[in-house]
């Protein structure tokens, strides 16, 4: 049955969680088992379907199996959407459904006491559906639709504890910050639509990622001499910057930790934030289309590499100064996503996806481990107030340590090592600039350092608060997923070692595997191993050897460089900077718009109205005085004249006759004197 999952069927993978979300939305609060059960079963079936899809995809890894259909008519054509099945899709689906499944199971324990349990699983399922839809989409439009729905689910889940003002604010911040990037993506999408007449990725030669369209896009140039494909690529990359928490839109991701920890693990570490990386990887033919062009001012990938490098370093540096366990992990996520972008930028999308997959497992592991710690320590998240947890939380500690070593890149055994090596090699091979390599190497030291600090502060030393002293290991629903994830955090690396790069080969659509001897890149590998050792050593020297005694004790770095440490703790002031610039500008624009409305436009109308009223007054005065007055005066004169004349009417008939007689005589006289003529 699994063999028969084809492109026409992949829609079932997102549809099942969507159905579960619908069930969850309509289930009353008491139906906890129903909502959680539906969500888990749906995702489990999706996982099986994904495995079937993977089998199908790997049978012919070079093929892009598609199933396209019309969504609605538009003019003489139609807006079309479609499903896509290729190794990238299949690997991502398997990863998302598997990690998601573990996190769902973990959540049943973690969220056990929450009143809105059913709603939580509804949102989680909605998220899974949207994320899977994003992965299987064969249309940038469908991808964008799911992309926004993923953002919605993220918003709802960050603000899940909406009665906390910080959580509500963090949700809003996340939605709006990512939407800034999404607007770029929207513009890129409509531009692409306009330039190629399609948004389907693969469509039998007519898709936007196929040669015809790419040729057309690189043949046209736009503002600043950029190839159209570069401009579109950069706009699409804006979306990735927002979603993947890349500089300069990284500010929302640490705040997103206000959400429940399983959410942080699933959405803000393992899957959704990686969607940006996935997006760039998905449209990689577009992003690389401009590379053969010479004489263009910029290639899209150069920007990707630069942003990735900046973010990788920035996230790692800031993580050093944080003391909230989830925020450290959040900045670590920012940094690791930077690594992935860097890998994309230097031309190795398979390295990026390899790191994405390994990162998903070990970062989910770390977040769930952190969740287990927080759960055990009654929602204490400050590492200064934890400490000494390795004894009560044995499983959590062991698995967390595996995750930490994977993230730090401890050699050979852990998956993070191999995927990071792949990125370093790719950066090494980039001919444009050596800077990304240097930045990546610096990041390696910092990563090892802050992760050592995190583990040392949390699990070593002595408990530094009431809650830390009374911590107990979490229930099996929470520890079993940890163990499973830990196993994968180790094993997954062996899918893509330089000696046997199976994953890379399949992603690139090759069936044969060209392994290298490890000795080929030994110099770089040796350097990175030294750097990891340096980072862990420094971390242990500062935090492990002499553990923190009290919660309020000064941080060793703070003691040595207080200004630097404060700057790091304040996240280098990005939030303040944005509040002072973007925030102020938008407030100012709002005030301007409001003022224009109230004063200028409404003022003009009021002025016109006054003018009208004034004209009315003038008119009334004119009516009263000139016209009415004139008539009155005329009538009065007439009346007076009539009065005066009526005195001639004596009523004396003799008088009248006399007048007649006199008149007659006068008449006769006139006639006679006039000679009768």
């Amino acid at each position, binding site marked *: 049955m699994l063999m028969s999952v084809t492109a026409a069927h992949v829609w079932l993978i997102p549809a099942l969680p969507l159905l579960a979300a619908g069930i969850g939305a309509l289930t009353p609060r008491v139906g906890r088992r129903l909502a959680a059960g539906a969500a888990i079963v749906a995702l489990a079936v999706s996982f099986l379907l994904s495995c079937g899809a993977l089998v199908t995809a790997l049978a012919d890894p070079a093929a892009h199996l598609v199933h396209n259909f019309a969504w609605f008519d538009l003019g003489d054509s139609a807006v079309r959407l479609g499903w896509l099945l290729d190794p990238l899709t299949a690997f991502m689906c398997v990863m998302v459904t598997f990690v998601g499944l573990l996190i769902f199971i973990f959540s049943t324990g973690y969220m056990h006491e929450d009143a809105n349990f059913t709603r939580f699983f509804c949102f989680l399922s909605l998220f899974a559906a949207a994320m899977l839809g994003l992965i299987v989409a064969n249309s940038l439009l469908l991808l964008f639709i799911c992309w926004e729905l993923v953002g919605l689910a993220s918003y709802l889940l960050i603000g899940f504890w909406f009665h906390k003002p910080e959580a509500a604010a963090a949700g809003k911040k996340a939605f709006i910050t990512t939407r800034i990037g999404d607007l770029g993506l929207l513009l890129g999408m409509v531009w692409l639509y306009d330039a190629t007449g399609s948004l389907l990725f693969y469509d039998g030669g007519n898709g936007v990622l196929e040669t015809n369209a790419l040729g057309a896009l690189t043949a046209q140039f736009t503002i600043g001499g950029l190839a159209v494909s570069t401009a579109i690529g950069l706009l699409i990359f804006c979306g990735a910057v927002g979603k993947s928490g890349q500089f300069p839109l990284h500010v929302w991701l640490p705040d997103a930790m206000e959400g429940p920890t399983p959410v942080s693990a699933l959405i803000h570490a393992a899957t959704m934030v990686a969607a940006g990386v996935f997006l760039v990887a998905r449209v990689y033919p577009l992003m690389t289309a401009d590379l053969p062009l010479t004489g263009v001012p910029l290639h899209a990938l150069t920007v990707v590499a630069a942003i990735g490098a900046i973010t990788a370093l920035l996230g790692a540096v800031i993580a050093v100064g944080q003391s909230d366990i989830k925020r450290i992990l959040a900045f670590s996520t920012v940094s690791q996503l930077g690594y992935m972008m860097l890998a994309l930028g230097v031309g190795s999308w398979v390295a990026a996806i390899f790191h994405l997959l390994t990162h998903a497992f070990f970062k989910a592991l770390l977040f769930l481990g952190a969740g287990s710690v927080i759960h055990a320590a009654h929602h204490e998240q400050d590492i200064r107030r934890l400490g000494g947890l390795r004894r009560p939380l044995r499983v959590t500690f062991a698995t967390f340590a595996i995750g930490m070593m994977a993230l730090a890149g401890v050699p050979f055994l852990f998956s993070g090592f191999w995927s990071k090596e792949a990125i370093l090699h790719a950066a090494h091979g980039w001919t444009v600039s050596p800077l990304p390599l240097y930045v990546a190497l610096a990041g390696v030291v910092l990563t090892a350092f802050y992760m050592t600090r995190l583990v040392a502060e949390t699990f070593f030393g002595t408990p530094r608060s009431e809650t830390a002293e009374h911590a107990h290991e979490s229930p099996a629903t929470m520890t079993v997923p940890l163990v499973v994830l830990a196993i994968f955090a180790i094993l997954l690396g062996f899918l893509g070692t330089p000696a046997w790069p199976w994953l890379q080969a399949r992603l690139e659509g090759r069936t044969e595997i060209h392994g290298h001897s490890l000795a080929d890149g030994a110099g770089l590998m040796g350097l990175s191993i030294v750097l990891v050792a340096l980072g862990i050593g420094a971390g242990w020297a500062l935090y492990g050897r002499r553990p923190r005694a009290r919660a309020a004790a000064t941080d060793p770095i703070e003691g040595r460089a207080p200004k630097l440490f404060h700057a790091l703790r304040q996240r280098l002031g990005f939030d303040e900077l944005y509040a002072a610039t973007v925030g102020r500008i938008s407030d100012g624009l709002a005030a301007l718009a409001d003022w224009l409305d109230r004063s200028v436009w409404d003022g003009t*109308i009021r002025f016109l109205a006054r003018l009208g009223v004034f004209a009315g007054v003038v008119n009334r005065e004119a009516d009263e005085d000139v016209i009415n007055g004139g008539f009155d005066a005329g009538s009065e004169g007439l009346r007076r004249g009539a009065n005066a004349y009526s005195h001639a009417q004596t009523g004396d008939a003799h008088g009248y006759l006399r007048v007649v007689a006199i008149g007659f005589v006068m008449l006769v006289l006139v006639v006679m004197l006039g000679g009768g003529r």
Partner: protein
Amino acid sequence: MTKFPLLSLLVFTPCIGAAVLAITRRASASVARVLTLLFSLSTLGLGLVAAASFDPTRTGMQWIEQHTWIEALNVHYRLGLDGLSLVLVLLTGVVSPTALLASWRIKSSARAFGALFLLLQSAAIGVFLALDFFHWFVFWELSLIPAFFLIKLWGGPAATRAAYQFVIYTIGGSAFMLLGFAAIFAATGTLDFIRLAQEAADGALAESLARAGGWWPTAVFLGVLLGLAVKVPLFPFHTWLPSTYAEAPTGVSMFLTGVMSKMGVYGFLRILWPLFPAQLHAVSGVLLWLALGGVVLGAFAAMRQTDLKRMIAYSSINHLSYCLLALFAVSAATGGPKPAAHAAAAALSGTILQMFNHGISAAALFACVGMIESRCDGRRGLHDFGGLRTVAPVFAGLTGIAMFSSLGLPGLNGFVGEFLIFRGVFGLAPWAAAIATLGLLATAVFLLTFWQRVFHGPARGATTAGFAALSGVEYATLVPLVALMFILGIWPQLLARLINPLITTWAGHLNLP
């Protein structure tokens, strides 16, 4: 024509309802409400009949009714239905009954309210179906009268002022339009939209107008433009809107934003654009900026509002400006060097879908605010609430869906129209699309601020006293609208198939002078 007079029935059934209500003096309030609702539902029922018998493969008018009315003036009673009118009739059919349900609990004289409301509904349908300027204008102006009384008599504390402002502003605009059409009549001797559009396409209309003087076509165009611009409203003729929408009773606000604002856009599409293509093209650069002003400044102004109804009113300005933006972009690109039929088709489809979608989502948002208002002693300030989601989760969910539909979340109805508009405008005037994204961003900011302040956080202000659960009538108001948001968001083909032939024809005839 001996066919069944479906369109006349559509127009006049609510009118008959108003008459029935007017004469049944002894009907109790509840009987009056039910009667009103039934007559109001006739539009939906007949509209669905029309949609079912509508032949979407045919362009041009269907179900045409034509009778000579005033022979001496060459005035005919002409009704006709094409995709555009059908969509708007259906919108009226959906919004009117829900608006009535939202006004179910009005305190005084349900009978008068119902009669006036039905009259308003009848006038709106008349506007959407009339094909002759004479009675089109009668319906156009007739709609103001019941609206005036509905706002003045059942509105908020400053309703009288708002009602006067609304009516005088709108009449001020349409007076110029009337003059314009008087000139057209004098020049051509007909008021038939279709014939005039043909003459305009041949260039004969401008020629006949120009016989009176070279500036006449422009003057007439500006007059008609002004009348429509006030109605939509086009920035900066929008200042009547926020206070009117805020002061009107909830159901009337729903109708005003859901249906009446569409009358203006309809006028642009049915009259101004076909009759004055060259003139519109000449000023479309300026108009594009005005529409952008509506999109961007409307959204930013909404960010500053503390009255929830005013905020949603501003969001209406923003949303309707997208429709006009698309139309002006099409007009600006008309006859340009670049054949852009696909972009134009997208922009025009987007305009029509956006009209329908905005009608649904803005009406739903007004209904939601009205429900808050009615429970909290008429308070509807942004800062008066907090934590409403804790006390009323279902209501919060429904409001949230309406809100996300309004900010264009994919999967809900608002997205399709906005996407098509952006796709079209980008193909015709890329810079305008780029600037307009600011409006999308600001919309997200203020709607989420609304949501966060009112629904999130700890219970505060008016909500601490509790919040009664939604009644059956209130569910009946919101649930159909919300269901439509989902249906049209997932399956836009339902509407797209009705308008597509029309859009194809329009987009195909763009190489005008």
